[in-house]
């Protein structure tokens, strides 16, 4: 299958330089303000996690809804291209772009809070995973929304609920059903790694923390691909 949509996303992003700049500067300004403030690490990490998750979710759902409204997605599908493949290319491309745009913010967190190299190293796969999950979530909410406003609302609610179930807003209680949910949640490694980068002593950063969320994210992407024709196909909008 051709990577035409993947390439188009990168080309489009490179042409929209003003937007690219804002996508770097706006989170950076926000993150720098908090990172260099005396905000406690748990609070700072929660804010960073919410910001990064919403950045991915909104950035995926709103352009998808807009392209659905203009009929561009319908045109893609009428070429005979696999709808799920198109969607997967889009989600991966926007997640990769988000990672690039958020990298300066992550570096500022590390610089401001004195994160170690190992913490930063763990942040990379956590960011990739979290942003992939956020972008997949955005694609799903886009399928349900009938307008950009609805998409923004659904994205915000869905992302915040998932963040809550990732333990972002509460103290972990091992052995409870919430702890089991957290272990599988793709936003948990993001939160834990940001917690560590923000200066809190979190649980051991290791592959074990990533295994279940990676599995969940891969399954979510596979389901999204399989259901592509319902997600961006011809009947939805």
């Amino acid at each position, binding site marked *: 299958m*051709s990577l035409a949509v993947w390439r188009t996303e990168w*080309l489009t992003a490179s042409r929209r330089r003003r937007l690219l700049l804002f996508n770097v500067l706006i989170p950076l300004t926000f993150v720098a303000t908090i990172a260099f403030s005396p905000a406690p690490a748990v609070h700072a990490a929660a804010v960073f996690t919410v910001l990064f998750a919403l950045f991915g979710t909104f950035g995926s759902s709103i352009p998808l809804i807009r392209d659905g409204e203009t009929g*561009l997605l319908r045109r893609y599908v009428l*070429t*005979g291209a696999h709808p799920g493949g198109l969607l997967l290319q889009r989600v991966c491309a926007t997640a990769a772009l988000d990672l690039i745009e958020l990298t300066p913010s992550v570096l500022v967190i590390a610089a401001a809070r004195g994160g170690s190299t190992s913490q930063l190293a763990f942040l990379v796969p956590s960011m990739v995973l979290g942003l992939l999950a956020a972008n997949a979530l955005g694609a799903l909410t886009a399928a349900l929304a009938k307008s950009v406003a609805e998409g923004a609302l659904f994205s915000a609610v869905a992302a915040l609920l998932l963040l809550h179930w990732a333990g972002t807003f509460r103290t972990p209680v091992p052995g409870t059903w919430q702890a089991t949910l957290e272990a599988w949640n793709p936003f948990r490694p993001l939160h834990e790694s940001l917690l560590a980068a923000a200066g809190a002593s979190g649980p051991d950063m290791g592959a074990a923390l990533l295994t279940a969320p990676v599995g969940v994210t891969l399954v979510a992407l596979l389901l999204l691909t399989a259901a592509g024709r319902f997600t961006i196909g*011809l009947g939805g909008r």
Partner: protein
Amino acid sequence: MFGATELSFTYPSGRRGLRSVSVRADPGDRLVVMGPNGSGKSTLLRLVSTELPCSPGSLTLFGQASRPPSRALRRRIGIVQDTPIHVDDLTGMENGLLFAELYGLSREDSVGILESLFTSLGLEDALHVPAREYSYGMKKKLLIAQALAHDPEMLILDEPALGLDPPSRETLLRILEERSERGVCTLVATNEPALAQALATSVVLLHEGEVVVQGSPSELLARVGRATRIEVQVPTEPASLAAAGPALEGLPADILSIQHLPGRIVAESESGPDVLPQLVSAVLDAGLKIERIELREPDLTDVFTLFTGQAMGTTGQTRGTDTMGTDEENE
């Protein structure tokens, strides 16, 4: 190539888009669908292109049932939709490459094909210009190039000439005729009688979602004769038009018939414009104000009027052309 049997479609709002429409076309055919706005032209095209589900009714494409639409089947079709949609940040060539790749062509092959199509359509200077800077006509040409690049066996074109300048329309006609000679089946929706007559091997006239009549342009035009049409546009006041009826009855025998349509009186004259002074005089005597007079040869809109008693479209400078609007408005 395709066959639609008893095809119907109802929009979610409850509006009937099509009612029991049966049409077919073979390789090399150029089937033109005409009708006023909302008659179901675009709906029929969207059904045949597999964009909308055809139920009730059945549709076969390339000898296969179109439900569920397979990806391989869609690759054999080229589509020009009524509204140009592109990735505005990409150049014309990049947009062309995007769709060529989605249709399964390699980038290497696509570049040459697209350059050739862009040149044919007069877009060669805009090859590397972002699509957002294209005019409406240029965007329409880009759509046409995208639809042709993968050399489809079937073309579905919704108002393809809308927004094109006269030389580009000629080029489009020539390209479509060339493709037709190579066996490509073409389905076109238009409101332009001149385009339909120049292009079609067969014409379907639609009215309120139903087929009014179908046949070759010459067969259909034979139904309305060869008498010159004199259209006198008058203010739309049904009472005054009705009152003018008796005053218009004593016209010369050269005037074969007089039709009273909303906003206009259409006379059929066997002697061309010779009867014009008497007709004008009679209309003025009937107390009507003349806004515009047009003489023309009979066309497919007259066939529509003959079968429905209604005018198909607007008259005047943009006679027969549609205005831009949403999908449903442009049906």
